[in-house]
């Protein structure tokens, strides 16, 4: 299995790695770039925990061959905060107790960041849909949805 060069821009940093066709984006992020904020919960596209933003859209990195991401802009959970300044979504998750074990949190946050980027005033259905792609076993989703709504309000207040 011949390795090939893949170019990825991850959280604004350009990387070049030689990867085998069988390597997933999740593996490259976690094992090569040590970006372990992206979680491996099921590895077959069911749990949602490995979500990253690929060219701005949330995708499951366990289902993306690394070679498929060649040339793409990737944003992981490590790239959401601006230095020590939390993104309003992150702050809302903290403040509203939307976090228990935290294993689904990176995915939930990235999905919510994308939602608010594309739909600054989401209704309840849009928020539920945004949350529905990730399994959370701790919170029953309640506080996560509340946090996304709160973040939407915070974002519209401070443009």
């Amino acid at each position, binding site marked *: 299995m011949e390795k090939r060069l893949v170019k990825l821009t991850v959280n604004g940093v350009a990387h070049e790695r030689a990867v085998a066709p069988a390597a997933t984006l999740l593996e490259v992020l976690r094992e090569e770039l040590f970006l*372990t904020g992206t*979680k491996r*919960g099921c*590895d077959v596209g069911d749990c949602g925990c490995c979500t990253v933003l690929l060219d701005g859209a949330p995708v499951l990195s366990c289902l993306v061959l690394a070679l498929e991401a060649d040339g793409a802009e990737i944003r992981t*959970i490590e790239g959401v905060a601006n230095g020590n300044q939390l993104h309003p979504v992150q702050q809302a998750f903290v403040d509203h107790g939307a976090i228990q*074990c935290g294993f689904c949190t990176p995915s939930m946050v990235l999905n919510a960041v994308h939602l608010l980027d594309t739909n600054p005033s989401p209704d309840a259905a849009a928020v*539920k849909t945004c949350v529905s792609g990730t399994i959370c*076993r701790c919170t*029953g989703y309640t506080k996560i949805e509340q946090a996304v709504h709160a973040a939407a309000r915070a974002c519209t207040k401070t443009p």
Partner: protein
Amino acid sequence: MTTWQLLGKPTPQVGAVDKVTGRARYTDDLRVHDPLHVKILRAPHASAKIKSVDVSAAKALPGVRAILTGADFKRTFGVLPISRDEPALARDRVRYVGEPVAAVAADSARLAEAALAAIRVDYEVTPAVLTFEEARRETKTPLHPELEKSNNLHKQVQQSFGDLSRGFADAAVTVEGEFRFLPVTHAFTEPHAVQVEHDGELLVVTSATQVPHYVHLALSEVLELPPHRLRVVKPHLGGGFGGKSDPFPHEMIAAKFALVTGRNIRLVYEREEVFLSNHGRHPTELKMKLGLHPERGVTALDTKVMIDGGAYGSFGVVTTYYNGVLLQGPYPVPNSAFQCERFYTNKPMCGAMRGHGGVNPRFASETLMDMACVQAGLDPLEARLKFLHTGDTITPNGFRITSAGLREGLAEAAQRTKWKEKWGKLPPGKGIGVACGFFISGSALPIHRNELPQSTVRLTIDFDGGITVYSGASDIGQGSDTMLALVVAEVLGAPLSLVKVVSADTRLTPIDLGSYSSRVTFMAGNAARNAAISMRKELVAAAARLSGRAPPEYPKPGEPESPFRLGQRPPDFDSHFLGPNPDYRDGWTFANLTVTPDGGAALDYFQVVTAALAGRGILQTQGVYQSPKLEGGKHKGAGAGLSPSYSFTAVISEVDVDVETGFVRVEKIACAHDCGRQLNPLAVEGQLEGSIHMGLGQALMEGMAYEAGAVQNASFLEYKIPSAFEQPVIDLVRCPSVDNEGPFGAKEVGEGALAPVVPSIANAIYDAVGVRLMRVPMTPEVVLAALAARRGR
């Protein structure tokens, strides 16, 4: 008690920022130096003799560094000393599909996996025991011959209190039912993982575990290594719910590989392996009969339970008891009997899962309670309000119930849900139902009988005034680190930012039995509170010196005025255990980094710390929690379910039943949970919302599907956890309750609320469409079948 500065306010978790930025490290996120990767070969048969295992071809493959088989482990293990029946790797025989048989450590996970395919295991398939009927049968070849039994009964318990036949004679109505429950599993999102590193003579085992202490003990046994050569560490953990509360084979295997190879080890499960390891809630068949009197409440309760334990013991003996003893609440039951039998079968083992042992019998008792109320012409909510336990009670089996504050909460929930206007009056297909529950706040008796406190906390203050809490309690996402920090900060008047919690590291942190049985807030919280009270005494002494005052006189606690009021007495500084939840008022106020004597001038906290450190270098105290010696009665198994305190819950569910498809939509759930005083409302709400989610899943869709002993739905796609779309609107109702012995008046909130969720939905379905469901999960097909059966009558 003075007003709280920190407690009682919604407080985000201390690690929340790390979790929300991706900095939080979970076990498989750690990057130990140059590890070997481990993969496990699993049994493809539910029951078979292992005739031979040939690893020679696998060993010869490139990159393979070591292979282990059952022959490499002399000792079996198990979380309970009475059922240490599980091997790290199967020897001689396999007892379930997925049982670990051999393991490979190689330079990469890929090489390890390739090597598994080269291991040759010669099996002789033997008849599998998969059902209750098969497990009850006489046999010459039971799963566990060492028990010297002629069938596969693992544990049988029987208890009876009062006079059952007189109880039923007293009843105005008697109802009964036969109930059946599919197995459900925890389905935490972080798979099991372990990493092992060498640190000189020390083997450092980092594991996703709820119980570092038990893992430490089991590793020592299985590896035949003195305990002091081990260190077990739990980093951030992605959910447990009981599913990480046993020591596991993979921990034994990884540590053994580290010993054998001298290398660091990394092992992480695939999701399918997590399902195969299970340890979830037991499949259950249950018969129950309940007698009710409209004035006197439950007069008699007769329960017969069979639970399918799978291949090994796990927590099963405890589960067997909990299926009966937790029925002693939430109402007084003067006359009762229960029998529970746990069987071994050729399936992955069952163990402790949120609401341990109490969930399925609660479904039965609360369904029957509802039936009895309807038959007796009682409003089921008002009847429950009337019959609930009051505080300061001893149950017939000897449980000491201290605080019981559900009554007000349930009344409030009834108002908020407009119960009176809805129950029995909603349009067809819409229904409302109620159910109550009762759960322990930790077990009064430890698993290992010894003289150690159940929880110990070490507290230090260093030169910089920084406060460090060392606790063995395992934060599994429930927020126990935050609870410990809050409790200590409250006593010492420090901001949360000054407090660092070091937890769940068996070398650095004192013994704590782990995060299960809803014990942590009550026990570790009390230990932390006591450590902080002792620290406060040190600081007060220094502050008194600085301000030229005499140190306070600490009164002796004396004898308690009542066996229900052991807390809120002066701390007993003559004993390591100051007492549960002592009243630490000392004539000083600690607030906002000042230390102020009554009627005196404020001293700066840091100045006081510096004075206290003079000549000592570090301030260090310890606090412990030890459950009071509860009587519990003289009967066999009297210790089971004994707890220093109990929680109470009421759940009101509102449903919409589609009578054509059988789909049940749970629209709203109101939940009143008596957890004593809420130390951190944000965490309390989170626990309740999570319990509701899990109860909803078991009620409507979750169930492990087995065929020939193999789990057929070992994925998050096929094992149906409710999605965000299924979660109902939740209304949480506070109960104005203060537990005398819980830290600052708190008791459990992690588990108790789950159980009544399931029957509240069943009772709401009855209100909606008039059918009683006795199969769980209540899938659309179960609902339709019941509707058809009613039409057929």
